[in-house]
């Protein structure tokens, strides 16, 4: 049984212009101890999918209108925010994108990590502090015993993201959702943070759902990849399969847009970009949502929505290309 199994999730937002279908029928499953990458451009519903799991989206205007989110065999969708509090941080940890704004500026980092421990585990103030210092050592913050009493503004971006990781892992969750944890960081720091995340995963044996729009990050960390476009899953495959044999035109476009440094000058070509941008998901047009940007678009693409289907073991995609018809 998968650790987390999302089936047909639909999260919609009520806006002045109409219903925004940010996530529209997403299926994602994560096994124990596995790293799953969710990729796609900005605005394709990755973050909303992740936030829906723990109901961290603003409700209203957001609302989970359909689907189920099975975590260890228990559906999280009908739970109230209050009931989810026992699962948040304890079972599922969350690492956010912006380390600069995701920490409370007026509380020490120690207090912010310890409050999670004290909420979920029967520990005294002193034990919580000790465990917090241990966590800070694990995420390689120098002089952890002294730094625990410092405020977020006394840390650099990379250090803050380490603090965020310590916070998310403090209660040893079974699943960690990392929402673009390296996007706001320098390239050198990005690699350090990804290494750290990998280390932690191996040490604690947790599953990681890594949301990113950087294909390089995917290739380095993932075992399985889910490609999302415009609120839907368009392709899903083990990482080698996805990079070796991408089937959906959108996935192919994403892979072609990665700069190649391994090619010599003679073979270098202009980096290929996918023209256009993610559609605004209010009253989406029928058919495939990628069709307006797809160079292989056929007449059927604007008429009928392609279903996600298995084309090889563990490899699923939603495109009319290569359909039996």
């Amino acid at each position, binding site marked *: 049984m998968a650790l987390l199994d999302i089936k047909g999730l639909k999260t919609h937002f009520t806006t002045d212009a109409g219903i925004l279908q940010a996530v529209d029928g997403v299926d994602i499953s994560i096994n124990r101890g596995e790293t799953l990458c969710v990729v796609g451009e900005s605005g394709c519903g990755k973050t909303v999918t992740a936030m829906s799991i*723990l109901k*961290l989206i*603003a409700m209203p205007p957001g609302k989970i209108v359909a689907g189920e989110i099975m975590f260890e065999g228990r559906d999280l969708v009908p739970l109230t*925010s*209050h009931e*989810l*509090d*026992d*699962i*948040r*941080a*304890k079972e599922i*940890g*969350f690492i*956010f994108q*912006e380390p600069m*704004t*995701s*920490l*409370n*500026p*007026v*509380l020490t980092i120690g207090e*912010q990590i310890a*409050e*999670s421990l004290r*909420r*979920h585990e029967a520990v005294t103030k002193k034990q919580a502090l000790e465990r917090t210092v241990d966590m800070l050592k694990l995420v390689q913050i120098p002089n952890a015993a002294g730094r625990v009493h410092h*405020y977020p*503004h006394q840390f650099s971006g990379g250090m803050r993201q380490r603090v*965020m990781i310590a*916070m998310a892992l403090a209660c040893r969750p079974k699943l960690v959702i990392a929402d673009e944890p390296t996007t706001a960081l320098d390239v050198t720091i990005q690699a350090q943070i990804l290494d750290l995340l990998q280390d932690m995963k191996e040490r604690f044996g947790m599953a990681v759902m890594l949301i990113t729009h950087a294909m390089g990050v995917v290739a380095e960390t993932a075992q399985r990849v889910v490609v999302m476009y415009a609120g839907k899953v368009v392709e899903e495959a083990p990482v080698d399969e996805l990079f070796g044999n991408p089937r959906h035109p959108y996935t192919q476009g994403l892979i072609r847009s990665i700069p190649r440094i391994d090619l010599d000058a003679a073979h270098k070509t202009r980096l290929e970009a996918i023209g256009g941008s993610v559609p605004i998901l209010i009253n989406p047009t029928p058919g495939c949502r990628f069709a307006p940007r797809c160079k292989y678009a056929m007449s059927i693409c604007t008429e009928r929505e392609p279903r996600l289907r298995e084309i090889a073991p563990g490899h699923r995609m939603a495109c009319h290309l290569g359909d039996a018809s």
Partner: protein
Amino acid sequence: MSQYVLRRLMIAIPSLLGISLVLFIVLALAPGDPFGELATNPNVPPEVQAALRAKFGLDDPIYLRYLHWLAAMAQGDWGFSFVSRMNVDTLILQRLPTTLYVIGSAQLLALAIAIPVGVYAATRPYSIFDQIANTFAFIGFSLPTFFTGILFILIFSVKLDWLPFVYSTDIKATGIPWVLEMIRQAIMPVMVLGLFQAASMTRFVRSAMLDVIRLDYVTTARAKGLGQAKVIVKHVMRNAMIPVVTLIALQMPAVFGGAIVTEQIFRIPGIGSLLISSILANDTPVVMAVTFVFACLVVLFNLIADVLYGWLDPRISFR
């Protein structure tokens, strides 16, 4: 920290000097002086008048008079009230506790209403509670205190006869009855001033809360499973209170100004009504002293705001 406060107090000296100079010049330019009454008194011969004026230095040039006043103030001599026939400092010390009692209670009432209502409204924006709170806040700060004061007197004193509308300092009672009477007579002025303050404060608390509630670190706190109450109090309120504290401290001058009006309506023998009666009676030393006390209070509350600010926000250090 204490060094910071000391330095701030030192900085306050030049500004207080500046304020006193401006006050002094304005009062000197204003028509009338403490001997205006003598001039119209037929029993005082003109040469006695002139001698008195010369003795008290009223015919000296303005800068000399200011320096005299300053030298006397520096030695703790606040001057003499010709109208009340007593020293100005005794007079002010007599009146100040009443004003502080009324204003202080009104501010406490305002905070006791504004913080819970503002916080609760912000957690449920556009709910029925929020809309009712907003409506009352709007009515509250649209109605001036001189109107609500008289309305309260009409309802609670004249029609219902529940509360006295003249504030008395010599209550003929001791012990518990005295305390009860002190509370009873302060109810209306405190309500009028407090509700007026609460109205604008509520709106400010609400918008400060709404600014913070959608920030990333609040989502982080939610993701820790802390629960709504703890997230709101520990993470949102703690941050939202920083601008609120500043606003309240900076509003204090306006509060004292509002108190002058309220004191007039309810005949409270506070420092505000002392100022009005002194102006009307040309009692310059008292006017000068009272306005100077107001200036000191404003400077003091600014300092308190800065110290609280640094205490609430660790990003600000006292250097």
